[in-house]
């Protein structure tokens, strides 16, 4: 994808001046971030920089202290997660992201909880994308391996065919073959038209694949640019990508 094309895109998610944290503890200051329709954006940064917090804030899971979050023209700043999900956002948290005592199929059905009925076509689409899930439908999610659980979590978020998918470290803890696999799947999902906002510690790989990247430092915006620009930036390489 070309950088020029990206800029031309219509804005889907817009975070402006966001201050947020936990309880009284502020983590994010003046955060600015946008994702265009169908765009693939990555957030990188040191441990504890506030990457996960940023994702949670978009999804209404933190204490809001200032600023706005707009999604697809709607102000979702003060909304609770169960409302936000109606607007076409999907979220896969960093850890604890499956219902371990429910079966694989039930997990996927929970993904479509807000609908009156389980959308069979969406379910089939998830199964097509992750065949292992179809074979293991009746297995308790908690007994699946780490990588399988990541896929299940992603599958669940896809059940509503979201416009934007928030992924928090989808490759963490995965074996190398699965890491590659995971990135390929995310590319697929993005190609099908879903915008992606992803946090990754596997920064080089992530930046190589995305349209645009943000570097978060100490809860503030650090660097912004196309994935390739950030990869090429000497300072960013030295400070955040381990040389």
């Amino acid at each position, binding site marked *: 994808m070309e950088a020029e094309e990206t800029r031309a895109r219509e804005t889907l998610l817009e975070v402006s001046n966001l201050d947020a944290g936990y309880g009284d503890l502020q983590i994010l200051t003046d955060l600015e971030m946008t994702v265009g329709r169908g765009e693939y954006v990555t957030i990188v940064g040191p441990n504890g920089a506030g990457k996960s917090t940023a994702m949670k804030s978009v999804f209404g899971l933190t204490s809001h202290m200032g600023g706005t979050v707009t999604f697809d023209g709607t102000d979702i700043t003060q909304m609770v997660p169960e409302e936000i999900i109606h607007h076409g956002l999907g979220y896969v948290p960093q850890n604890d992201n499956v219902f371990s005592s429910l079966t694989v199929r039930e997990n996927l059905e929970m993904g479509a909880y807000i609908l009156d009925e389980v959308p069979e076509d969406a379910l089939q689409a998830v199964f097509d994308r992750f065949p292992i899930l179809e074979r293991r439908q009746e297995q308790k999610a908690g007994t699946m391996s780490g*990588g399988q659980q990541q896929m299940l979590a992603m599958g669940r978020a896809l059940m509503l065919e979201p416009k934007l998918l928030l992924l928090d470290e989808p490759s963490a803890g995965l074996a190398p073959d*699965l890491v590659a696999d995971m990135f390929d799947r995310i590319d697929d999902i993005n190609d099908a038209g879903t915008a992606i906002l992803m946090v990754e510690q596997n920064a080089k790989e992530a930046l190589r694949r995305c349209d645009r990247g943000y570097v978060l430092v100490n809860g503030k915006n650090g660097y912004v640019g196309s994935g390739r620009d950030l990869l090429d930036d000497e300072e960013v390489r030295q400070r955040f990508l381990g040389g």
Partner: protein
Amino acid sequence: MDGTPALAVKNLRKTFGGITAVDGTSFAVEAGKMTGLIGPNGAGKSTTFNLITGFNRPDSGQVLLNGDDITGKQPYEIADRGLVRTFQIARELEEMTVLENMMLGPQHQSGESLWRAVTPGVRSSVKRDEEKVLERVWEMLDFFDIAHLAEEYAGNLSGGQRKLLELARALMTDPDILLLDEPFAGVNPSLENRLLEHVHELREQGYTFLLVEHDIDLIMENCSRVLVLHQGKLLADGEPAEIKADERVIEAYLGGEVE
């Protein structure tokens, strides 16, 4: 190699319900070396650790520590014999300070006897022992560069600092063998390099390490020997270069990624 290995497992097996987590694995770990243990998710690495350290009981098979059978012993007995582990997810004693966490490490402290802890007169010997432990604690904190956090509650540490504390605390037990379960997962690369330096320093002092990691480059660069686990079975065992070239390992674990 020379004589009995520091640690050996023989035909270790463990099932959970229908799942076979560890399936007749045997391997040995040489003293004074750093050995890597890799394998896909769910291969049984953490379970193997649990079996070795007594947190799970094997269905069958043996664990030998310096030639002694320690199968099925309690974790504290095994730690007593100088085999200590860290957890995959750092487990700090959150409402205890870093100092308290560290002070907990040494084994057989005289003040751990209730009688000595409270009896007037005897207690002064407890204090003397504590002073010795305290001295080592501060040395260790300096060594790990977390002395400035000494008074902090462990629950207030950042992810990387927790990993450091976990390792430092394990070292306070003065072990012969350390089993590290993904000590660098989620740790920022620059911090990771510092940790590794420490580990190598220790290895040179004579400690033995068994290290689980998914970062393949890290394993290859730092370990003198690599074990590959797959579906609970030992798939390969050799020097890093051999492992990298092993077809089965590439297929089962490394995927197309390695150059």
